[in-house]
């Protein structure tokens, strides 16, 4: 028996790419070696920055090691140093494709710690903005995944649809991506007067674009060949790995935070929760397609029954007083000063606030110690938890399947690495 060269795990380092050659333990007639190839962290199709070291035998992935954390900015540590309202801009940078949902989740967590309830109009506005954000999230995920499989037209259509919605968001919040729209105890300001009309126009555009994409992709032979029966996740696995959101629902986990633990008046709206049947990539794709329509419907319901009234509570210890009060009265001035310098004083307690994020159950675990700053913040980031099953999904598939699998997990670096 001839000894194989001892190149075990030795780095050949050709062209800056870590390449390891591992001798195969078998009878030596055929020269077979498995090869470890790094995919990422700078591959253009990796939506966030993640690294996958895949051990290949030919085209087949025998083993994979997924590494995350390239975008770690210490979100949780930063939150401990600022007051409760200052965390809101940080939450924009978690899932930056649907920042409004993160804003809403944080605001709800702090409001529950304070045991305050925001006005109905504010809750409805939050629902509308969350759902628009969710549609943006799904459009980005689907469009980018389609592009990675070669369907560039579908990507452009979806980005066009997203553009309509971003214009809409911009007209409300003044920003397109880093929005910071909610405040503890309400939202920044009311919707513009012509919002409902603009929204209808935008939704017509989105529906039209989505219809084109549906016709381009959903029954496309090439697309289906690439997506169907790839990376099937059973329900038992999905539960064990803690999958939630569209990925979990594609695998048959009938769980939607909006329906099962309603927050912010979601119980007032009628919507369906689309479910997958097989748990493959195509299901994950199609569940998202169907969810977009449901989200648009929720928005329309909320806007048609939007109650009148204020958009934030009137408590000078939580929400900044209107500017007229600050400039005209001494009380207003003092309250403004106190709130800006000391922040919202939150009584000691703990809360685990969940909302349905673009990718699944987004949870904020906040520990307050009675001061103006959180003692501890933990984000249950759906992307991070979904990356846990990545390895299991990859093994047994080919290198070409890595990109669609990764695309359908929709890992968002900001949220996953925090």
């Amino acid at each position, binding site marked *: 028996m001839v000894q194989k*060269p*001892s*190149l075990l795990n*030795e*780095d*050949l*380092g*050709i*062209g*800056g790419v*870590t390449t390891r050659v591992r001798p195969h333990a078998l009878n030596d007639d055929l020269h077979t070696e498995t090869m470890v190839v790094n995919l990422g962290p700078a591959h253009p199709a990796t939506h966030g920055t993640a690294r996958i070291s895949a051990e290949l035998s030919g085209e087949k992935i025998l083993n994979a090691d997924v590494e*995350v*954390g390239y975008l*770690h900015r*210490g979100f*949780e*540590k*930063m939150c*401990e*140093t600022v007051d409760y309202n200052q965390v809101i801009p940080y939450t924009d940078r978690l899932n930056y494709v649907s920042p409004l949902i993160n804003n809403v989740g944080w605001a709800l967590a702090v409001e*529950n*710690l304070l*045991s305050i309830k925001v006005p109905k109009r504010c809750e409805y506005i939050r629902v509308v903005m969350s759902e628009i954000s969710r549609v943006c999230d799904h459009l980005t995920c689907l469009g980018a995944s389609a592009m990675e499989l070669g369907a560039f037209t579908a990507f452009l259509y979806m980005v066009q649809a997203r553009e309509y919605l971003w214009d809409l968001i911009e007209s409300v919040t003044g920003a397109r991506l880093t929005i910071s729209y909610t405040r503890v105890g309400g939202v920044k300001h009311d919707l513009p007067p012509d919002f409902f009309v603009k929204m209808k126009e935008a939704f017509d555009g989105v529906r039209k674009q989505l219809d084109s994409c549906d016709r381009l992709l959903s029954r496309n032979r090439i697309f289906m060949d690439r997506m169907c029966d790839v990376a099937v996740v059973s329900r038992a*696995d999905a*539960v*064990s*790995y*803690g999958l*939630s959101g569209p990925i979990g629902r594609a695998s048959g*986990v*009938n*769980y939607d935070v909006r329906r*099962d*633990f309603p927050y912010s008046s979601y119980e007032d709206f009628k919507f369906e929760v689309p479910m997958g049947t097989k748990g493959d990539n195509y299901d994950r794709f199609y569940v998202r397609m169907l969810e977009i329509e449901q989200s648009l419907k929720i928005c329309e319901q909320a806007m048609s029954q939007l109650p009148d009234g204020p958009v934030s509570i009137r408590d000078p210890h939580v929400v900044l007083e209107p500017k007229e009060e600050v400039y005209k009265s001494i009380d207003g001035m003092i309250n403004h000063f106190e709130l800006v310098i000391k922040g919202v004083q939150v009584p000691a*307690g*703990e*809360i*685990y606030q969940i909302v349905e994020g673009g990718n699944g*159950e987004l*949870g904020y*675990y906040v*520990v307050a110690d009675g001061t103006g700053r959180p*003692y*501890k913040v*933990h984000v*249950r980031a759906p992307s*991070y*938890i979904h*990356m*846990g*099953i990545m390895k299991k999904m990859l093994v047994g598939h080919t290198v070409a399947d890595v990109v669609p699998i990764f695309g359908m997990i929709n890992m968002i670096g900001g949220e996953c*690495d*925090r």
Partner: protein
Amino acid sequence: MSDSRIQRCEELLHRKLGNRIVSLTKELGALVLVLNRNDVREVFKFLRDDSELHFDVLSSITAIDWLDNKSDRFEVVYHLLSLNNWYRLRVKVAVPEEDPTIDTLTDLWAAADYLECECWDMYGINFRGNPDQRRMLMYPEFVGHPLRKDYPVQGKQPRVPLIHPEVRNTATDMSRPALIQIRKRKEEARA
């Protein structure tokens, strides 16, 4: 979680866990169960497998660093969800500073692997029996655990030396000595 559901879950937990409960309280609409460190594995297995409780999803694992504010410095916090009954439960386990060790749950829930790695990375809680406990968000050379309260916010770490210095400039340096060197090394290894 509605009040009647909390009530039902609380009764079930009292009846089934008995004296293993250190405390079971309601806090802001959530049930908080405190356990002893030695009971963790058995109780979690029971919570998952029991037909009436059936907590099948492990939502999150994190820890709290209390410094000197409590008798044990760390507290590991688990969040559980039951998909059949829509119960939610927060489980807390105190862990002392001198031996920050707790049993792993990786064989009960696959999700525990990533969550425990993160908790170890951030707080230095050692999960006994975790097959692949490593730094998830920080890099392997990082010293210390950043979310501990005694780690400074502006804490600096030394730069990590380049792992493959010999292949650093192959693109810009057209004489390519590095590659030649590697090929030589490779041939030596084969010989």
